[in-house]
């Protein structure tokens, strides 16, 4: 994508978020993903839950991404990353990983290692979900409460599950009792 195309795409996404459009946007490629996620993070007011492989640099490694995520955390947005491969140092976006990780907002459970598809959900309103792993295509919508609520519920269950796993792992007694 050229810079002009990126700007045009960003403008369109901003506009869709601003007007609360229910149009579903099918998108592919890391550039599209990055722009959509940046703008949705900017617009998020309460929650931002991300389920992804490894916070990959291709998507999360943008210049402004770490700043945008930090700003979201600072204005009280509940940011959580559920990561499948936290050990993947080569691919991950370190700046974002540090911002989120230092605030204890990265969760991991090996039970989710093969779970698909990846998704991000914001305020039970906006979402981006990967449709096909092979084609690297995803769908995003700036205002779809039905789908977003379901994704939000899934994310909460995953967060709760990962939290319980963490407690068990930290307290062997609880684990034995379980």
């Amino acid at each position, binding site marked *: 994508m050229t810079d002009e195309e990126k700007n045009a795409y960003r403008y369109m996404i901003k506009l869709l978020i601003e007007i609360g459009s229910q149009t*579903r946007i099918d998108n592919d490629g890391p550039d599209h993903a990055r722009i959509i996620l940046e703008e949705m993070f900017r617009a998020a007011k309460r929650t931002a839950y991300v389920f992804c492989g490894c916070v990959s640099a291709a998507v999360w490694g943008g210049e402004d991404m770490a700043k945008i995520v930090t700003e979201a955390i600072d204005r009280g947005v509940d940011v959580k990353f559920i990561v499948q491969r936290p050990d993947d140092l080569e691919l991950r976006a370190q700046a974002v990983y540090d911002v989120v990780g230092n605030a204890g907002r990265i969760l*991991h459970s090996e*039970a989710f290692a093969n*779970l698909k598809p990846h998704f991000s959900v914001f305020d039970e309103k906006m979402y981006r979900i990967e449709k096909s792993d092979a084609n690297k295509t995803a769908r995003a919508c700036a205002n779809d409460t039905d789908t977003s609520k*379901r994704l939000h519920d*899934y994310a909460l269950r995953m967060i709760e599950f990962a939290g319980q*796993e963490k407690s*068990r*792992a930290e307290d*062997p007694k609880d684990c034995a009792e379980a």
Partner: protein
Amino acid sequence: MTVNFSACSKEVVCVSIGANLLLPIAHRFTRCLLDAIETDVERIIKSHLNKDIGFCTDADLQVIGTCAELIKAENIDCAKKAGLGWRVFDVAGATVGVLFLWTGLASEIGGYSILLFLPVLSVSAVAVFRSLRWYSRMRLTIWCVKWFVHIRRRFTDRLTKEMREVEDNENILNTLGANLDSVISAKPTAHMHRTSPSPPSVPGRPVPSMPQSPTP
């Protein structure tokens, strides 16, 4: 260049008699023009609405069919009138012309002899007018149907796309939900844990498998 009809009134009368005698041909011209308008609904659909044929409803065909029927009726009506009305005009005009020539009145009437052309001219004018009127009506009907079909098609396409997307979303969410259910309902293992760049500070606790972040 102007033609002085007064100077050649005899010739004008002769020509008008001949033209009047050819009136059935002029009348046939009406029918030919009307016949030239396509009234076969199937052909109309094929030639004008071919791309949208799947989106034509019975009502669309009905509208075109009605118009086609009206043109056919007009054509039959035209044929009936030709049976008597125009032939009376035809014979009368020709007879008057012959009388003018025979009595020598043609020279006295002079330029007015051209009025003997009136039946032929009127039939031709009516033919053109009727044909144009029916042709435009049929074209307008086809255009309206085509436009409605196009709108309907666009709407249907959009609706189908929406439905497909909703269905698609539903499938993705159901798959994710089912996978999550199976993962969560499966017996959890002790090595599942939360990771963060900061290592556990309490000794004796399990060490996360994630390596330290290279940046402080």
